[in-house]
């Protein structure tokens, strides 16, 4: 929830799959850092997945959104589809050339690459 009064215009909702692989956690870390840097706000994909009313309605009403999936399985996209929410902007990290594995020691260069891709797709 916005701490300031009223949602500022143009605020971007960032939804990360946050899955159990390097690319899943890259999506999560990029979402965190973009939020900390003031580029949009990370929001709770699990709340949408749980079909909780406030979360689902928020995703339906927000003017700008980016969904980030780590891999082509597309869990974030599937959650949005299941809740009948269009993914306004959508990114799959393996399509950026990042190989999926179970190494959770995330590389700074990969995080930087993901953040740049998110910014690019939201332009």
């Amino acid at each position, binding site marked *: *929830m*916005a*701490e*300031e*009064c*009223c*949602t500022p215009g143009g*605020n971007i*909702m960032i939804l990360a799959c946050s899955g159990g692989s390097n690319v899943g956690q890259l999506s999560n870390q990029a979402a965190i850092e973009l939020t900390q840097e003031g580029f949009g*706000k990370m*929001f*709770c994909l699990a*709340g949408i997945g749980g079909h*909780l*009313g*406030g*979360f689902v*309605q*928020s*995703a*339906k*009403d*927000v003017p700008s959104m980016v969904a980030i999936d780590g891999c082509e399985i597309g869990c974030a996209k599937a959650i949005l589809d299941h809740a009948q929410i269009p993914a306004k902007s959508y990114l799959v990290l393996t399509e950026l050339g990042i190989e999926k594995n179970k190494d959770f020691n995330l590389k700074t260069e990969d995080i930087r690459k993901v953040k740049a891709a998110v910014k690019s797709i939201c332009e």
Partner: protein
Amino acid sequence: MEIKVLGPGCPKCKQTEQNVKDAVAETGVDATVEKVTDVMEISGYGVFGTPSVVVDGEVKSVGKIPGKEEIKSWIEK
């Protein structure tokens, strides 16, 4: 019927509250309208931003000012 307008307080929140009150008055629906300003209580609804409107526990709109006609469609049965 219980209607809550979520928002710490700003022109958009106040306009939303006024639209809700107008819609209630024009429809004659038996409803209470409560303004919720407590940030912790607002966060409990899982909304991305404010103003938001909740009708009988169901979040109807988030981060925008709903028009009176839209509000009427939520409260008229």
